[in-house]
């Protein structure tokens, strides 16, 4: 080992690539952190307290938390079985299915909102039917959930697929041959072993749903979620109006991530 790292260090003219990588990565991390820190520094604490007391902000925060939770649950329930199928199937059209799953990730969110409106908008058959039953799919909590699920759910499928692929199939075969059926095998062998990866996916879905703006703005401007509340505050009061609300969103999002992360030991490993 020692000789190998020595060689890589000396062979390229005394260039230490590890240091270079650290410097480049450090610049990137600073670029992530500096704006956040300066955001916190630029807002007087009184303005922050005012924002926390603003009923519109409180309502937006609760709308975001509720809708993101529901979206995450929906994405997990519908996405995990698909992730497992994608991980285990040898079907030739598997890649086509995977491409469909990744589609919302590559679509610009506003376009996602537009295409959703062609199905759930009040002028589309399904949307019109929903309006008729008194549960409209736009300008409603349901609309927010639909927009967030559309945009965020691919994360749990893609990450879950990788997590399931990391579980040795031999273990599943062993379990089955020991007399345990598919469900018991999934519950006691596959899911516990894939759990960290799955939780990482769930966390990503939740984070993406919390921050969802583009599709939500098209489908359900009201009731307002946090990102839309930030946008609204910006339009009304400029940067000074938007900053305190943005801080609340940042804090709520980070708190949610911490909670999700502590459910498992560390989903990122």
């Amino acid at each position, binding site marked *: 080992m020692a000789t190998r790292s020595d060689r890589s260090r000396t062979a390229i003219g005394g260039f230490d690539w590890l240091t270079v990588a650290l410097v480049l990565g450090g610049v990137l991390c600073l670029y992530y952190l500096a704006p956040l820190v300066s955001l916190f520094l630029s807002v007087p604490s009184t303005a922050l307290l005012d924002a926390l007391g603003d009923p519109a902000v409180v309502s937006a925060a609760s709308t975001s938390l509720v809708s993101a939770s529901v979206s995450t649950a929906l994405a997990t329930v519908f996405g995990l079985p698909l992730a497992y199928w994608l991980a285990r199937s040898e079907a030739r059209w598997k890649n086509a299915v995977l491409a469909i799953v990744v589609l919302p990730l590559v679509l610009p969110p506003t376009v996602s909102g537009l295409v959703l409106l062609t199905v759930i908008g009040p002028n589309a058959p399904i949307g019109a039917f929903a309006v008729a039953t008194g549960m409209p799919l736009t300008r409603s909590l349901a609309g927010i959930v639909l927009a967030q699920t559309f945009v965020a759910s691919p994360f749990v499928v893609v990450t879950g697929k990788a997590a399931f692929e990391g579980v*040795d199939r*031999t273990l599943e*075969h062993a*379990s*089955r*041959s020991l007399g345990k059926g598919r469900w018991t095998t999934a519950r006691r062998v596959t899911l516990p072993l894939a759990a960290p990866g799955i939780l990482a996916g769930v966390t990503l879905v939740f984070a993406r749903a919390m921050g969802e703006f583009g599709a939500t703005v098209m489908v359900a401007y009201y009731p307002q979620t946090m990102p839309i509340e930030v946008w609204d505050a910006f339009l009304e009061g400029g940067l000074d109006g938007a900053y305190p609300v943005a801080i609340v969103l940042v804090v709520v999002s980070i708190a949610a991530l911490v909670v999700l992360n502590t459910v498992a030991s560390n989903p990122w490993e």
Partner: protein
Amino acid sequence: MLAISEVKKAYGAFDLGPIDLTVGTEVLSVLGPSGCGKTTLLSAIAGVVDPDAGTVTLNGTDLAGRSPEERGTVLVFQDGALFPHMTARENVAYAAASIDRVEELAATLEVGDVLDQRAATLSGGERQRVALARSLAADPDALLLDEPLANLDAPIKRRLRDELRPLLSSLSIPVLYVTHDQHEATAIGDRLAVMADGAIQQCNTPGEVFAHPATPFVASFTGSTNLFRARVAGTDENPTLEWADHELDAPDHESEVGETIEFCIRPEYVVVENGARERPNVLDGRVRRVVFEGDDYLVDVAPESTDDTIQVTLSPPVYDRLELADGERVRLSLPSDAIHVIGAGE
């Protein structure tokens, strides 16, 4: 009884079968090189892969269409396939009907001390012992072992191997024991099936397979390294072979005079002669190479009249007494009853 009939499975360019095997309440070793289809055969029996054709019946029940958990066939894997998120105890209990059964099996396999350790912290030998305990906890109707000792260090491997034989026999169920190690196969199996290229080459008692290999592959894979082409010179009362300008007395075989056959003789049956007297089945040669294998010396001898090389196994005391050096002249005797004409005497 486990009966495998006409089982076939194609994997791209590789074809398994058709395989026909019947395993009674015995241990049948399946010996073959890696990639010969041993694991695929076990997977087909266990229901982990669907065979393209053929039937597998266990105690009279056709297993076709049954999922792995409904078959009563339990697999034991090369690395144990213990569930890494569980302790050894939880692994055994996973399959066991009661806590008492876990303790009982832990005692049988001598893993009582490590029951509360995580699977990942166990040594290779402990892991296989726990895996065996777990497989027995499931009360198998047939046990399928896929190279369970392949990754173990030599002393642990030998010890576990010697414990396994009485344990597996005591189960009184069909046991299929897959391995690429001829010593393991013969030490554990009541019978031995040799596999190559997806087909069973020979199935018989280990002694019979080793003494009378049915094909050149079986001969070389079971250690009959001396495999030569010869012409049949005499049959019936005077069965002889013509090889390397020598006429060798051979056991009776069913070939015609003039036919070209292959014969083999195990290197441990070749005798280095001291006497100078000319006798049948004795030939002269020169030592070409000596390899010390630890237990034995392998001596390659080039007979004067042929390009073939005869390999002789000598125990260290014998080798030390003979003081053979490279290039030295030696006289070899090929005992006629140790010569086997391939395909004869099945």
